[in-house]
Each structure stands twice: as C-alpha cells, then as structure tokens.
C-alpha cells in the first residue's frame, strides 16, 4: 500500500517539482547537472555466506559432516521495489534508492538412523528450511557514465543500510521410512513460522553494479545488474536458540552474511527543464 501511495505521490508531484523552462545558455553550469526522481523494481537471487556454523545435533557416534547444512544459494527468486532519487553531475550520478527488498534463502539438512542388526532397516529424514526476509533498504550509490549519449552504459558502487521488517521460515520435512516396512518416500505438509527474532534488525553491505540508461525523452530508463555483499552478521547471537520450534528439532541458525545478485529496472524523471526544448539529456 505504501508503495502504491508513493508512486501516486511521484506522478502527482513530478510536474510540480519540475522547474519551468528558462532559456539559459547551454554552457551555463546550471545545465551540467540534473536531479532525477523515479521508481524502480526488479528481482534478485539471494544467498547467505555462513561465517560460523552451529548445529543443534551433536553426534555421539558419527561425524558432524554427515549432518552439516547445505546452502542452496542463489536459487530462490526474490524481488524489490522502491523510489529513486538521483543527482547527475559531470558524468557521475549519485543515487539514494530506498525500497522494499524480499530475499529468499534456503538450506537443507539430512539425518539417517540405521538398525545395526539389519542395515537395510533405515530412516532417512530431510529437512529443507526456506527463509524469507523483508527488508526496508537504503542504498546510496555512485555511478559513472561511460558514454554521454542517449544510451549510456555505466558502472557503479555503493553501500546500503537495511532494516529487517519481518522474516519467516518454511520447514519442509520429507524422508524414507524403511523402518516401518516402506521403501517409499513421504513428505509432510510444510510448516511456516515467524523467525524475525532470530535476526538482528540492521544489515549493512556494499553494492557493485553495471547498467545502462536510455533517455527517450523526459524520462530516463535504467537497467542495472548488480551484486550486494553483506558486511555484518545478520543472525542474532543472543536469540540463535530461542525459537522453540526450531531448536527442538536441532536447527540452529549459522552466523550469516547476506548476499544477492539483482536485476533492476528504473524509470526516473528529470526535475529540471522538462519541455520540448530541454529534455533530460541536457
């Protein structure tokens, strides 16, 4: 809802914010810069970098490696949308792009029990944990235009600060219960629980991206492909084991840094000289 209101706000106020056309000489320094306001949206593939591993199971007679988590990074599609504030000057564009980010990550574990007197008698259990993060993110970027035409490829760097709004985890349990005389698999209905408390609120990171913009008129269309690398551990070290439902089945969240590959398309509008004579390229 807030996103919709924001878009309405942009479209409503844009003409008002734009300054009227003034016939100034093109060499005027005033013409060498531009403000932009717009919105963006896109998709991302998130992953997590486990900097320290924790386990709920402590094996008495087998190796810990048999039950270690397997991270399925960059396999789950997420999305993002938000506003763009940009300032252009001398080939550099500075941007503030607050927006909502949805990151989906996934890991899985496996456990097996065997009847020593009958090794074909086994129970195999697989757990898949899919975590969905909703962040309000504030990226600050700077990009450099490699060309100065209507079509402008660019490279950019940035940093972000994000606030965790919510997090949920879907737990999927499946397996093969040979102990009950069946060799067929089974899958339990998934269970989704809130896990916001397992994570701290803040997330900081760096951004690197390449992209291109195109100015068909009084609008600039940009496309970015980038990579975000989290700098801090997002897992709450205090609450790692506080979720009863997870710790009781042996799940312990590792120390994690978020990372993701993203694709973004943005539509931005110049705030100076929107007219037939002076378009956004100026």
């Amino acid at each position: 809802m807030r996103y919709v209101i924001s878009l309405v706000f942009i479209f409503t106020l844009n003409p008002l914010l734009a300054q009227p056309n003034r016939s100034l000489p093109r060499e005027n320094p005033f013409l060498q810069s531009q403000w932009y306001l717009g919105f963006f949206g896109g998709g991302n593939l998130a992953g997590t970098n486990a900097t320290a591993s924790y386990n709920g199971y402590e094996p008495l007679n087998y190796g810990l490696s048999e039950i270690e988590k397997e991270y399925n990074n960059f396999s789950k599609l997420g999305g993002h949308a938000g506003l763009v504030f940009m300032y252009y000057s001398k080939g550099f564009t500075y941007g503030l792009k607050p927006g909502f980010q949805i990151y989906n990550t996934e890991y899985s574990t496996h456990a097996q029990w065997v009847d020593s007197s009958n090794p074909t008698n086994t129970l195999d259990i697989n757990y898949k944990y899919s975590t969905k993060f909703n962040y309000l993110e504030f990226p600050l970027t700077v990009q450099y235009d490699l060309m100065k035409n209507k079509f402008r490829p660019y490279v950019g760097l940035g940093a972000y600060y994000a606030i965790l709004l919510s997090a949920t985890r879907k737990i999927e349990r499946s397996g093969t219960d040979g102990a009950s005389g069946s060799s067929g698999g089974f899958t339990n209905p998934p269970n989704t629980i809130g896990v916001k408390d397992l994570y701290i609120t803040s997330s900081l990171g760096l951004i690197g991206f390449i992209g291109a913009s195109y100015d068909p008129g009084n609008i600039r269309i940009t496309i970015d492909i980038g990579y975000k690398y989290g700098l801090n551990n997002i897992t709450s070290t205090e609450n790692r084991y506080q979720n009863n439902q997870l710790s009781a089945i042996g799940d312990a969240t590792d120390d994690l840094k978020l990372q993701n590959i993203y694709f973004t398309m943005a539509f931005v509008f110049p705030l100076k000289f929107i007219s037939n004579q002076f378009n956004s390229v100026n």
Partner: protein
Amino acid sequence: MNNMKLLFIALVLVLSGCDITKNDVEPTASFTKIYDDNRFEQEYYAVDIIETADKGFLILSELKNDQSLFTSVHILKTDALGNIVSQIELDAPFANAVNGWSKVGDLYYFVCMNANNLISNLVAVDETGTPADPIALGNTTYPLVMQQVDNGLVLLSFDNLNAESVITELSVDGQIIRQVGYSIGTGVDVEKPIIDHLTRNGDKLPFAVGKTTDGIYYFNGFYNFTFSLVFTNFGTDPTGVSQGQLSQGGISAVSSLGNDVFGIARFNFGSNFINPTAIISTSSITSSIDLGGNTFPEIESGARVSLINTPQGRWLYGTNTQGKQVSLYGFDQTTNSILGTEYLGSGNPYTFASFTLTSDGGIAILANTALEGRFPRIALFKRDANFLRRLVP
C-alpha cells in the same frame, strides 16, 4: 548534495550502532544440543548434569541394555558449548546410575549398582570425564538416590532381604559413617513399585534424600507401606513422617528453607501440586495430602520434578507438561506467587531430567527427547542469565 551524503552517513552510523555492534553474545551463553546416535537400538535416558570447573558439563545418563534388566551407565563430558569432549560407557556389571552428581572437592561423584551382587558403588569422575574404579559401599543394595551433604554423601537404598529403606551417611572415599534401615512393610505389593522403578518397567518414583537446613536428615521413599517423607536422626525410629498414599501419592520434590518450611511438589493419584512454602513437621506423623498447594494440571502424571533454591532467594521448579515440553516455574518463597514460566521443546517430545545453575548466571537444563518421535536421546538446553531472570527476577 554533500548535505544529503552526510545525512545518509549519519543515519547509517546511528542506526547501525544499535544492534550490529551489540550482536556479539558469547556462544556459550545460550545453546541447545541434542546428543544423537544414529543406531536404532541405542536408547539414552538422561539422569543429571553438573557444570565443571572449565565451564563444560558432565552429563550422566542411562543406556538401555538388551542383555540386562538394568541400564548401562553413560558419562558424557562436554565443553562450554555443549560439544562432546569425551564419553564413556561403564563396563558391566556396573549399571543403574541413580539420581545424579555430587561435587566434593575437585571430583564429581555418582552412585550406581553392581548388577551381579546388587551392591551400591560410588564412582568418582574427574574434570575430564574419566571415572575412577567404582568403590563398593558395604552392604547397601539397590541404590535409589544419593545426595551430597556437607563434605560427605548420604545414600538411600533398598534392602530387599529385610524389606527396608536404608539411609546411609558416607564419606567420599566410600566409608560408611552411619546407617539405619526402616521397614517398608511386608508383601509383594509394597516391593513391586521399587522393583519396577529399578528395572525401569514402571513409574520412576521420586526418591530423594538429604538434610534440612536445621540439620535433620530425611529421605523420600517407602516407609510403613507408603511412599513417605521420612525425617530421621539415624535412630531406631523416624523422628517424623509425612505419609503418602501407597505409591500413588506423596512428595515428588522437596527442599528445605528451615524452621519446618519446605518448598515441595507433590503427587496424588495422577494430580500434581506445587506448594512453595509447605510446613512439614519433622517430629510427628502427618499426611502429604494436607500439604495442599496449587494444582498444576499441565504437569504430566509421573513426571520428574526438581527444585532449586536460587541465589536470589526464589524457588525454581523444573518438570514437564502433558504436552511433552519441559516446563520451568519460578516462585517467591514468601508470598507463594508464581514469578515466571518458561517452556522448552517442540516438535519432538521432551521430558525433564535435571537442571543446574551455571557460573555465568544462566541455567543448564537436561532433558530427554525422542528424535523423530522414536529415538530416545539426551538434550541439553543452556540458557543465559536473561532467561533465568524472566523466571526468577
């Protein structure tokens, strides 16, 4: 533009200062560990936990034995994170570890039974989890429960030949200082609950032994046909008795505050009651039914109950619910008010075994669980001081 950048940087610094820099809680403060064995036939049942000087833990547990009516003894040493440092299963014929650990000096003691001659044996374990050779404790058969008293030990055992509950004061080198036996009454019906307890074929009964802060020894066990709280000065007869109802009613946990005031939990035909300030005469015959207390329908019938007198001067009760969660209750020792409640465990069933306060101000709770609902295993919940403060502010 510069103002905007500065504003953003300031915003980042202010916001990030909140929880990123504080996100460095020691991993030893809180953790959950489930000690798993991937063999079907291995069944572990937790008995007791104690913190060692290196802030690790010694965990005493029973291991089901297909070759005997009695359970094997398993000793697990962990580090401060709950990771396994060492483990050992005592060789036969040593079996049936009773209630748990007592620390005297630098050693940790527990009592088990020689399954061949049924004699109680004292085992000293060092900091690394290495047990010394068991020491036979005279003629004490069928050990039921042992407790540290001052720098010695006191043991409750069952003499099946004379049909007596026997209380024995011991030194840590296994020398018997005092001993007296009291008749449990005669007949198979009286002995059966004890045998069922010992062979794990029936309810595990809440045997207890110790000494009140007023210096009176007590045991919670069978006396005169009933499961009773018996006070004694090692004389021919008890000084006082709080009688239960056969094996179906009595006291399930007890700790002394002095002046005949006790924190207790009691059971009566499947119902459970908690009375943080029960007054029990140590010099007359009374009935546990008269001790009252609030009923706790959520507590599972037959569940183990323990209580600790915390440094804050509160009672901390531990037990488990009918829903198979470990439950902890904090109580005020003067007003009887409940101060906090916490539940642990979900998904798999959990039952309470024991708990101990830790040197970092937190608590370690030992539980039994059944992984995937079928494999009995030991679980350790270590929780920090904040958790404990929610229970006993």
